[in-house]
């Protein structure tokens, strides 16, 4: 094939391979070797049988399974109703569903404390109305973690199922109807099976996130879960044994997530996830009367609940005085003035996200090109490894980078002691979006376009830049923007890796929150939320342009 004669393809392939090896496989391998080194075997046994581990595991499993169950209970009908029925303001509802997925869930936890805390808005209103005489514990406990995560994560299931429904061939349902199937039978025998890939992808994302998220439980003071235990053991680094304990927990979580991924791999549709279709006209049924009221109520209430924490963050961020009243008694912009005094998190976020996004763009767009346009045994390795980052939890990435690039490791340790490791890690963690969007876009570009250029004397690199890029740019940019948004919002891995002076906006948010400075933290969250929404709007616009 022509690509064998192309130095661009071969060089790019080797750069990609080295990148994947150094920044994905090496840190993970380091973690695995660290955990299974002979010295630790007895320690692992001790750890696996310790009461702390067993109770944390029980709690984590309970929280993540319950969250997934509840998120499915809301997300599945949410997507189905949204797809099937003529919902008023649908053009706003669909993109609004995305919003909660764009901001770290612990932001939700912050608002929920103000809303549902012992002396939060809801309890105070109920007390004022004499409906209750002592505050209800809505959130402190595992049920609080489940509550918040369900609210903030169910849109993942909603979006993925909705996307599957968009792709479903309507004639399949019509065939079932023509044979006399009732709506319920049609749903269970035709509709449901065809949304299984989207449903499982969404469920996997929710389960994996709920299982490995440590920020939300920490904000709610729930420490007896695997993720917060691991985080505290490693981050506080009180003694080596505790660090090792934390690492075993991280490794254990990785095993569970990978096992889950492999079990559902057949159905998990990363490629399709990358090709979200939102504006395709859907054949809608017009609901009437009571049915319409119930369906619309369900959609609006679910959406409102998922957005409420994010909206409430706005109120907190503008509050000056607020204690034992349902809403703030004094408003001001002081919190924004406070956060703007310290420019470091903003500068860091800008620098890291720009460098990280540039890496995503270069590695992701060229990587996807090499994979789609050439055949080589290394391609499968590169493709699998780049895509794997989609399933590796942040806590694992953070821990493995922390160890693999520590000062004591020769050569690469140098990298870990400079801030460059932050954008590198962020890019690697979020590159999947760029790779998948680029991949999907290149598949729509006929190979003959490049071949025609070759025959006229154009070399592959120039053909890529002059012919492929201009035609694929919208798709690539959409992926790059999603990578960028996810880099902006990354917390779970950066929190492990940062050193004083390297704080990003999300890290600063977390620090302020754990220090009890909720309004300041909210001000950061508001800015982050506004940026994310703006960039998402641009990315979706671009994604729609490719389809047009």
């Amino acid at each position: 094939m022509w690509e064998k004669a192309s130095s661009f393809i071969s060089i790019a392939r080797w750069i990609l391979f080295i990148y994947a090896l150094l920044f994905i496989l090496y840190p993970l391998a380091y973690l695995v070797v660290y955990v299974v080194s002979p010295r630790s075997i007895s320690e692992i046994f001790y750890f696996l049988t310790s009461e702390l581990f067993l109770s944390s595991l029980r709690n984590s499993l309970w929280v993540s399974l319950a969250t997934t169950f509840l998120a499915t209970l809301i997300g599945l009908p949410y997507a189905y109703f949204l797809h099937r029925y003529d919902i008023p303001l649908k053009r706003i509802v669909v993109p609004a569903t995305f919003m909660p997925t764009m901001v770290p869930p612990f932001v939700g936890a912050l608002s929920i404390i103000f809303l549902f805390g012992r002396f939060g808005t809801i309890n105070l209103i109920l007390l004022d109305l004499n409906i209750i005489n002592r505050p209800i514990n809505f959130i402190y406990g595992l049920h609080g973690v489940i509550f918040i995560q369900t609210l903030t994560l169910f849109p993942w299931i909603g979006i993925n199922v909705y996307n599957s429904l968009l792709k479903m061939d309507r004639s399949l349902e019509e065939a079932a109807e023509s044979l006399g199937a009732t709506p319920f039978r049609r749903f269970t025998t035709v509709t449901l099976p065809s949304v299984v890939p989207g449903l499982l992808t969404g469920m996997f994302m929710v389960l994996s996130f709920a299982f490995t998220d440590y920020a939300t439980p920490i904000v709610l003071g729930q420490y007896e879960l695997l993720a917060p235990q691991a985080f505290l053991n490693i981050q506080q680094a009180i003694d080596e044994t505790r660090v090792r304990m934390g690492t075993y927990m991280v490794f254990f979580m990785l095993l569970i997530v990978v096992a889950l991924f492999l079990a559902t791999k057949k159905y998990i549709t990363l490629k399709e996830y990358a090709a979200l279709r939102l504006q395709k006209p859907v054949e809608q049924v017009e609901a009437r009367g009571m049915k319409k009221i119930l369906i619309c109520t369900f959609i609006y209430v679910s959406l409102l609940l998922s957005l409420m924490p994010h909206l409430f963050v706005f109120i907190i961020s503008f509050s000056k005085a607020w204690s034992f009243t349902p809403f703030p008694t004094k408003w001001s912009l002081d919190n924004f003035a406070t956060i703007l005094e310290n420019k470091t998190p903003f500068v860091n976020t800008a620098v890291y996200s720009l460098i990280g996004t540039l890496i995503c763009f270069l590695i992701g767009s060229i990587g996807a090109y090499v994979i789609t346009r050439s055949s080589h045994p290394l391609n499968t390795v590169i493709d699998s490894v780049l895509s794997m980052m989609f399933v590796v939890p942040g806590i694992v990435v953070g821990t493995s980078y922390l160890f693999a690039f520590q000062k004591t490791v020769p050569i690469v340790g140098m990298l870990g002691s400079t801030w460059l490791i932050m954008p590198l890690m962020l890019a690697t963690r979020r590159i999947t979006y760029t790779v998948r969007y680029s991949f999907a876009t290149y598949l729509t570009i006929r190979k003959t376009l490049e071949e025609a250029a070759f025959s006229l004397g154009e070399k592959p690199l120039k053909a890529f830049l002059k012919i492929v890029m201009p035609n694929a740019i919208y798709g690539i940019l959409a992926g790059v923007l999603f990578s960028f948004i996810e880099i902006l919002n990354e917390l779970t891995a950066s929190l492990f890796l940062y050193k004083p002076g390297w704080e990003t906006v999300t890290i600063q948010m977390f620090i302020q929150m754990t220090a009890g400075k909720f309004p300041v933290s909210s001000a950061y969250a508001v800015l982050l939320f506004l940026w994310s929404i703006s960039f998402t709007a641009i990315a979706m616009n671009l994604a729609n342009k490719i389809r047009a």
Partner: protein
Amino acid sequence: MVKVYADNVWKIFGKVVALRGVSLEVREGELITLLGPSGCGKTTLLRVISGLYIPSKGRVFFDSEDVTEKPPWKRNVGLVFQDYALWPNLTVFDNIAYGMKLRKVPKDKIQERVMRIASLLRIEDLLGRYPHQLSGGQQQRVALARAVIINPDVLLLDEPLSNLDAKVRVNVRTEIRKLQKELKITSIYVTHDQEEALVLSDRVAVMNEGLIDQIGSPMDIYYNPKTLFVADFVGQVNMLKGKVNNLQSNGMLEIETEVGAIQAMAVPEIRTGDDVYVVFRPENIEVFKSLPSKDYESTVLDGIVDAVQFLGNLMRIDIRVSSKTLRIELHNPVRRELFAPGDRVYIRLSAKNIRVLKSGE
């Protein structure tokens, strides 16, 4: 003008052998067509010649230069694709001028040559448009202009007319041939359409299962098929299994077939007792309502009309003879007797219109 020579070319994709030692010589300025069904290897051979594929074995020469390992961007070939492959981000002018800009041709020269080739192909009014604003036929003309403007050593056309509707196809194919003759470019044209191959080519190479079955002028391929595959693939054919009864002293063969004894011209390599196929074209059968006269060279058989199809310029009649159905085509049907299903008829075959092929060829 260059001569192209593919010498014992093999191309293997995993477990699929696409080319099995093909050798092909294309003379200077000649247009040769690679004709065959899907999967016969014709596009693979074209791509090997273009440099998009490197053969698993064998060599490719342009004149005496071995270009086997040369990538496409170093070969100076013009490629025209079935899907046109026009760059959507460039105007028609920029599409056509692309190759010349690469060759650093001065701007005024580019302008002049684009205009010349555009007027030859009647697309001079479209130069400012984008590909999506053109019809299929216009797009393919632009693709052709883009490929020939660089004065390629070889012009390679991969089913360039397949996406066009019937009328446009006829127009564009005439233009391709006109342009190729005018510019005298050595050209290889891939198609599965036998009519296209017969109309366009100096020579036709019929491919089957990764090999060239026969190569020759269009008339040679049509009238003297060397294999059953070629006979069957190019045009329509009636084919009867038979055994040579005897080789007569008058140079005739008597062959016993499923429909009775048939007289054919003797063929040097065929002897009495050989298993053979008797092959004849539908337009070479005469049909009568009453018993026709017969000489030593001809065979007369009787049958019943099975079906009659009127196709405008011809009438197609299926006639059941013994257990076999023979297809007959009558041109200019207005002047012929009309036949209806169920009619008893006689058919006459002349030995000079019959090809005898050995079983297994």
